[in-house]
């Protein structure tokens, strides 16, 4: 490995990196080499962001759009978890179900979630139903796969010990298989929250009539680069918050299980 560096050095270098990134952006924007319609400076984006917090654009303020997006996300994500996790667990426990569902699941998995947009619009409209279906399409596979892995790769010795002691089958499921799969399920939820959030943005760019994605499309149509960039910042912040919350949950569970390395 390359030379180790001290914490102080790495903080200084990190700040240097961030400053040069923002500085380059600001410099390019201010110098006028690129018209500010295309590349607004960070300050302009910040101003636009704060304005959007209070002023309506494309029918709502930024918090309003975010609330609309988040509501859709929450429905789609919960639906994916409620259907995906039990399905994955059952596939992990019952081999025959695994063999029946897997080929279908593998075939469907190659369809990008966004490719469901036309059917989602056709079946559920462009209001709230269509986007929810697309979020579901994005968030569902990781839920299934991780629940499946969690259930399938339980230490066989635990099951053998339970069998030897004559534990009834429902207790084996409740007291061994289910708890043993929890860490994997939580990791799956984190992945699916990320994919679901990303699919939501895609869905809103294409079909919705409210939400952050919609706001960005309107910004693009009005050649308001600041609005588009403010939308990107907002999406990034919410995504980061979601990811951090689930990462924390993952850590807590791993620590309680003593799985932390």
């Amino acid at each position, binding site marked *: 490995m390359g030379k180790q560096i001290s914490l102080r050095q790495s903080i200084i270098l990190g700040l240097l990196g*961030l400053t040069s990134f923002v500085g380059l952006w600001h410099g390019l924007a201010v110098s006028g080499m690129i018209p500010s319609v295309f590349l607004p400076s960070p300050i302009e984006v910040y101003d636009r962001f704060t304005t959007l917090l209070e002023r309506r654009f494309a029918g709502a303020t930024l918090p309003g759009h975010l609330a609309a997006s988040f509501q859709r996300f929450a429905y789609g994500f919960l639906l994916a978890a409620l259907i995906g996790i039990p399905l994955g667990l059952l596939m992990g426990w019952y081999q025959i179900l695994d*063999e029946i569902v*897997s080929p279908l699941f593998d075939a469907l998995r190659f369809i990008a979630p*966004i*490719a469901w947009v036309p059917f989602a619009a056709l079946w559920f409209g462009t209001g709230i139903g269509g986007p929810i279906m697309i979020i579901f399409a994005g968030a569902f596979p990781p839920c299934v796969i991780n629940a499946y892995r969690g259930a399938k790769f339980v230490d066989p010795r635990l099951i053998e010990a339970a069998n030897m002691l004559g534990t009834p089958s429902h207790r*084996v499921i409740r007291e061994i298989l289910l708890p043993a799969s929890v860490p994997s399920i939580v990791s799956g939820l984190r992945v699916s929250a990320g994919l679901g959030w990303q699919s939501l943005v895609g869905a809103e*760019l294409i079909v919705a009539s409210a939400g952050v994605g919609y706001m960005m499309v309107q910004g693009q149509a009005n050649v308001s680069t600041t609005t588009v960039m403010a939308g990107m910042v907002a999406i990034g912040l919410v995504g*980061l918050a979601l990811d951090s919350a689930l990462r924390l949950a993952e850590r807590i569970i791993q620590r309680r299980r003593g799985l932390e390395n």
Partner: protein
Amino acid sequence: MKKYESVYITLGGMKVQRKVSIGLATIFIVCMIWFALTTGFGIVPSGRFPSPSETWSALIHVSGRGYGGGDLSMHVYNSLRLVVMGFLFAIATGVPLGLLMGWSRKAEAFINPIFLIIRPIPPLAWIPLAILWLGLGDSAKIMVIWFSAFVPSVINTYAGVRNIDRPVLEAAYMLGMPKVRFVAEVLIPGASPMIFTGLRLSLQASWTTLVAAELVGAFYGLGRVLNVAQQDLYPGMILVGMIAVAILGWGTTRVLGMVETWALRWNTAALAAKG
């Protein structure tokens, strides 16, 4: 609890046969149900989901007369070309950056914070910006595909370098290996299993982004077919577009898998783990 035991005891060959036959039977039954629900009993109206024959005629339609500005081969060619270009461009830039970040702590300290603020923005959120900057043509799509594939390839390459066994690196040092040979013979091969993991993720992300970008606005491509079919309320064509996207995604993943097997043929441990 016999079912659990069988997972561990059954002989490999026997299980595979059973798997394949159950899989084929399932797909056959699903096709029968599809036929029964649409054509057979008409429970699902054709305005909602196409029957097998409608799907077939849509396929004939798009591959013969063409639909949405071109015939099927042209749409496929355009989508495939954009994905391959964006993906290769992302490899060419992402892998070296990942190697650099994995190798040099200074580069890592410098670049990582920038990554941390850009990474949470989903690739699809760059589409409006790309359209503002580059318009509806190919370059905007290549930009977003590049972006979506770039991040996973950097991160995994970086993690791959960090996972190389220390003694291997120390041995190379001790033997006074020249820098160029060190990168080519130790760093890249050592990180390559992780690099390929990253590339698989990158490829998937590329297809998702391409479809989204073409749905937002394009002149050709499978996303364009989906978009026009949605506006025309043409379920058969929507299904054809989706199947085409899935087949292309599957095919490119297979090609990448073959490249991986070939590139890692020296690495018996990785191949054994892959099965």
